């Protein structure tokens, strides 16, 4: 059911601040540019501003839609905010620990979400999990807007994330002493947590001199309780590829696999690794927010009311809606299904164009896709497929010959393999696809549980890894243009 919240005006806090605290995300950082932070007014008054008029249609305004990032109210209001209840991937696998006592915490510091696990270092058991949205999201959804914000207001994002993680760690430990905390995240998250300058990441060639692991005492981070062996942020692999991918490689065993293997993390900042004959090639590629429902007209996160799965049964579309309620939008996995179905039925041509002069591709209830939504998906899919294509060929492999591929991250976990193949997002017809869940936090936990072998494991990966900067690569730009089109016919699978 849609969640209604009633908010009282608070001194010194705008309605917009309060909405953010409730979990409404501002994809463009509160610049009123994207319209992605919309909430629906149920009771009370939130005045329509000029910028809201530009971002929303008259009809949308009339039924109560407002932009949360600009919302102000002088009296109590009731709003519908259920659109914003993301599924955050945790991990419930068991790992075998080395003999050690006490408690530790493993953290996946994501651009969008935070996951922290309290781990019994003796048994390897996960005793508790906390998840939250990254509070930096208030200042932009992707790493580039975070960099831009940090350059304008140095230090603000660093204190935000240190405070948020400090609170999560304290609430997990609830007074018990902690032996160690290990963190993984992409390069920008690493730098912002460590307080390193993100300036080198703001322009070509995107080389930062500060990619190494860093260890802090709790006091240095402003965390009240001491942590015996400190808080360690794991090392980055290069460019924007961070220790989240490094931990994913460890968790999926990519570094020790005998056969060629790939790991894809399909987030806003897509990260790709291809391992073959002792080498690991990695790269990041800006896929944009389409896989998370961003920049899609009726796109939303995978929360209640989102279409997450579409099948054709007896020539009719069957749309599955999360939470079993009325459909309100479509999330990334639903979008990929929709495109696959549209290609199969011929509603969309391989060029991405809607056929027969149609302007929309209706799904169910009020939910439909427009031409621009397919274009947005083509850009996202093209960026990933082109990156994958380039890395496999640099590794001396034919994409078609790759036997196994691991998909990390929430979208990778929910997307249907057949649909991803149909739209050309996974251009490797014969590979077995393993959804690997939150492999980042699992890898970090593995390192937490093997202190004596940790450095050796990190060294193995770091010395085998080569980072390739795709933005400056001619072949990548060519391939990107080619990969924007959808495959003509369904690949054999």
């Amino acid at each position, binding site marked *: 059911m849609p969640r209604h919240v009633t908010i009282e005006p608070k001194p010194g806090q705008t309605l917009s601040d309060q909405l953010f605290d409730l979990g409404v995300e501002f994809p463009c950082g509160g610049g009123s540019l994207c319209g992605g932070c919309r909430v629906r007014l149920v009771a009370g008054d939130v005045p329509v501003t000029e910028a809201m008029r530009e971002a929303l249609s008259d009809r949308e305004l009339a039924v109560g839609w407002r932009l949360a990032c600009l919302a102000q109210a002088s009296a109590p209001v009731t709003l519908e905010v259920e659109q914003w209840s993301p599924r955050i991937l945790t991990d419930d696998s068991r790992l075998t620990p080395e003999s050690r006592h006490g408690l530790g915490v493993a953290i996946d510091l994501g651009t969008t979400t935070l996951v922290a696990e309290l781990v019994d270092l003796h048994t390897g058991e996960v005793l508790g999990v906390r998840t939250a949205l990254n509070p930096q999201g208030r200042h932009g959804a992707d790493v*580039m807007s975070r960099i831009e914000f940090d*350059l304008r207001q140095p230090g603000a994002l660093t204190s935000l994330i240190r405070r948020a993680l400090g609170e999560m760690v304290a609430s997990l430990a609830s007074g018990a002493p902690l032996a160690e905390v290990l963190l993984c995240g992409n390069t920008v998250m690493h730098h912002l947590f460590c307080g390193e300058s993100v300036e080198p990441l703001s*322009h*070509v060639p995107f080389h930062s001199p500060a990619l190494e692991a860093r260890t802090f005492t709790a006091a240095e981070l402003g965390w009240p309780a001491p942590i015996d062996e400190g808080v360690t942020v794991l090392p980055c692999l290069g460019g924007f590829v961070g220790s989240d991918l490094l931990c994913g490689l460890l968790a999926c065993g990519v570094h020790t696999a005998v056969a060629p293997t790939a790991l894809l993390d399909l987030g806003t900042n897509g990260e790709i690794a291809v391992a073959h004959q002792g080498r690991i090639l990695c790269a990041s590629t800006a896929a944009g927010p389409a896989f998370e429902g961003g920049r899609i007209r009726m796109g939303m996160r995978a929360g209640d009311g989102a279409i997450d799965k579409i099948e054709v049964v007896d020539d009719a579309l069957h749309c599955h809606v999360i939470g079993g309620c009325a459909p309100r939008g479509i999330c990334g996995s639903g979008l990929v299904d929709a495109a696959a179905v549209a290609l199969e039925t011929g509603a969309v041509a391989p*060029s991405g*164009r809607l056929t027969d002069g149609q302007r929309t591709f209706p799904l169910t209830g009020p939910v439909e896709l427009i031409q621009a939504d397919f274009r947005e998906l083509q850009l996202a899919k093209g960026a990933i497929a082109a990156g994958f294509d380039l890395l496999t060929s640099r590794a001396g492999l034919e994409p078609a010959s790759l036997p196994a591929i691991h998909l990390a991250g929430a979208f990778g976990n929910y997307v249907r393999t057949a649909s991803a193949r149909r739209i050309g997002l996974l251009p490797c017809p014969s590979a077995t696809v393993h959804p690997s869940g939150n492999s980042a936090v699992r890898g970090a936990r593995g390192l937490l549980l093997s202190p004596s072998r940790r450095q050796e494991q990190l060294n193995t990966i770091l010395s085998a890894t080569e980072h390739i900067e795709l933005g400056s690569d001619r072949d990548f730009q060519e391939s*990107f243009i080619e990969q*924007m*089109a959808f495959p003509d016919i369904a690949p054999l699978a």
Partner: protein
Amino acid sequence: MADLRTLHDAILEGNAKQAAALTQEALAEGLAPLDIIQQAMVPAMDEVGRRFECEEYFVPELLLSARAMKAALEPVRPLLVASGIQPAGRVVIGTVKGDLHDIGKNLVAALLEGGGFEVIDLGADVPAQKFVEAVQSSGAGIVALSALLTVTMPSMKSTIEALDHAGVRSRVKVIVGGAPVTQQFADQIGADGYSENATAAVALARRLSQPA
């Protein structure tokens, strides 16, 4: 008799080989270069622009057509120069310092060429000084700046400042574009024009190259 309609369609369909061959054929038969441009190439690129605007064409189709247009223009260009025919205007274009994205910039460059402009393409990650030098040596009337990253947008400002310092700012019109760029930003940094997409950039360049 060479068929300009077929040349028009070859460009529209992005068939570079056929477009170049048909142009050669037309020239061999003695058609005037300017007629080939005005009767086949310009209308073809206008149609490409129209299809892009109504979402029928997307980036790949646009680039293929641009490539065909370039191939067709190749044999015509030296003849234009030899006969002293003036282009619609001369444009220096590039993606600003720190930014390597050149797909959008290439689209604008191709459509400008299709629109009859002479285009000097400086590529991507172009330092401000290079824009200054290109303006000084070419006498271009328009400088087109592209940026795809919010973090490289400040390079647009510093490029305009460099044109100013070199004393050539008043000789050129500066137009800006790229996904994160807005009209508001263009006004802020003192650009003369902003365009939301590649096809509108051609109209903008035409408007700005009219004598005031």
